[in-house]
């Protein structure tokens, strides 16, 4: 921005920061609500009028990891007396644990789905970004016959609602044996994200002046070396942004995860709303599940924040 900051522009700056903060508060209110619901007692979630101040508890998280069933009346007194404090809290909430033959509490499957999510999202993001960057570079630097059409084709793969391709996709996967496998979902998400990653990376790579590579080529670099040593480093913002978006898409994907997986490879998103079947939805558990699920993706973005904001700093030559 301007080198010399006049007092007017300082006021503009302050005004802008104030507006940003206002926007931040407004955007955060629903998230705050979801987050606080994760710590509420079940009875506080849908009170009339809404409960803003409450005594926090970690019962929702206990419930998140365990298999439970709703009690139809008062909890069994004998079992209540014997139970450890965390089990008592769950019983206070009107549930009881499902225990297996040996008396161990059965886990709810949230952890395994969380792990599935991580494996599938990380792998497919990596593949989508890598392939996308290569393809984007190819389209950006070289002329390809029918290039606009190819690019448009790539874009169009993302236009159909999943509903429509669900059945043939399901049949296709069944035939190949990929239903309910990690590999199946990884391939699916990579394909799904490719269109976005190609387009976005091409947008970024187009902004990088060709002159640098040409200078490098003159200096004796091969094209590949120029790609890896000159173009990629300058494209870090693009790679970071693409990685973030692809990861978010794969992480939160719901429709295909629900359709294509059952127990083995199911990710967390189809699982989190599973509380909806009971007569009274336990919003606290859904909130707790969502909150925990938000953490990896938020951390991922946070760690990449500097790359996201860097921009292409070599401004000497511009088109």
């Amino acid at each position, binding site marked *: 921005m301007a080198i010399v900051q006049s007092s007017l522009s300082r006021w503009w700056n302050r005004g802008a920061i104030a507006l940003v903060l206002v926007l931040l508060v407004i955007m955060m209110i629903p998230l705050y609500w979801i987050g606080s619901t994760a710590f509420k007692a079940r009875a506080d979630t849908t009170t009339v009028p809404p409960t803003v101040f409450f005594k926090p508890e970690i019962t929702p998280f206990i419930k998140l990891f365990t298999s439970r069933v709703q009690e139809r009346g008062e909890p069994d007194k004998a079992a209540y007396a014997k139970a450890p404090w965390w089990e008592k809290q769950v019983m206070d909430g009107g549930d009881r644990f499902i225990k297996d033959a040996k008396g161990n509490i059965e886990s709810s499957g949230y952890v395994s789905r969380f792990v599935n999510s991580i494996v599938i999202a990380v792998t497919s993001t990596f593949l989508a970004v890598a392939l996308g960057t290569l393809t984007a570079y190819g389209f950006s630097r*070289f002329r390809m016959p029918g290039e606009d059409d190819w690019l*448009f084709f790539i*874009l169009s793969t993302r236009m159909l609602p999943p509903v429509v391709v669900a059945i043939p996709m399901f049949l296709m996967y069944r035939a190949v044996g990929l239903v309910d496998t990690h590999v199946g979902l990884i391939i699916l998400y990579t*394909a799904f994200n490719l269109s976005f990653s190609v387009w976005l990376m091409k947008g970024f790579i187009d902004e990088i002046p060709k002159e640098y590579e040409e200078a490098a080529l003159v200096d004796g670099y091969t094209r590949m070396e120029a790609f890896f040593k000159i173009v990629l480093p300058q494209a870090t913002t693009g790679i970071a942004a693409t990685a973030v978006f692809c990861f978010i898409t794969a*992480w*939160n994907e719901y429709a295909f995860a629900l359709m294509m997986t059952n127990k083995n490879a199911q990710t967390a998103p189809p699982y989190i709303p599973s509380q909806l079947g009971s007569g009274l939805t336990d919003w606290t558990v859904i909130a707790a599940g969502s909150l925990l699920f938000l953490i990896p993706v938020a951390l991922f973005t946070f760690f990449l924040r500097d790359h*996201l904001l860097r921009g292409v700093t070599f401004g000497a030559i511009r088109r």
Partner: protein
Amino acid sequence: MSQPALTGSTQSAVPAQSDAGRGMSDLAIRNWFIIPTIVFLIVFNIFPLLYSLGYSFTDYRASMNDPVRFVGLQNYRELLEDEYVWANFVLTAKYVIMSVAGQVVVGFGAALLLNRSIPAKGVLTTLLMLPMMMCMAVVGLFWQLLYNPSWGIVNYVFFTEGKVWLSDPDVALLAIAITDIWMWAPFVMLLSLAGLSAIPPSLYEAAAIDRASRWFVFRHITLPLVAPLLLIAVIFRTMEAFKTFDIAFVMASMDETELVAIKLYKMAFQEWQTGRSCALAYIVLLAVLAITNVYVKYLNRLKAR
């Protein structure tokens, strides 16, 4: 060697051999970089697309084992003659415009505000992006709670005591659009911010020396340089807005909020009219293709400038 770029094009004439004969030729690189992706996408998408295209010409119902009858264009004809389908399209178009416009205003606006040196900019940006990181199904569920006048907080935040949002035919669509904007404006914001950060300060300095007005700077420096990325954001958000299903389905079930994707879902997975739903999907696809085509042509023109 490749010609220096005189115009906006960043493409080299192909093929060209690298001088020392080491490494791969440009042609080889181009092919190896591009073709695997294209082949992968074709293989992956071609079967489902052809399959559903085939279905669309039949009266197939996936829930039954009846013999499949070829009906030609009957499905398409019936759908295009159905006034409800047209009403649906108009409604969806309204929704897309509302939602994408809102996302651009909020997102681009936020990016403009953030494009300066602010303390903790990275943290702020990450926080502002949190809505986008939530799972759509969960967002719809919770916003449904939030909009309820009895136990939700939206009426308290907007000071609209007792206002009914999701059951009011006039406001329901807007309510869903607001949720959509809340969730996806950060997407537009991030892309715009990346574009804005790439504008070299020297341009602004030159403009300041020339005493250019803020509006002039915005219109002639900022906007054109950020336009490509902004347009990519708009293209993708438009495509996704046409496909909106999760939030709308979970939050409201009025006639006035039946978006095309919801109709598709009901047709395909409640009524099991598989053939007909594929026909509708292809009609939607053609519409989206046409609209996106316009955007892409505009984007290409921008880039060529």
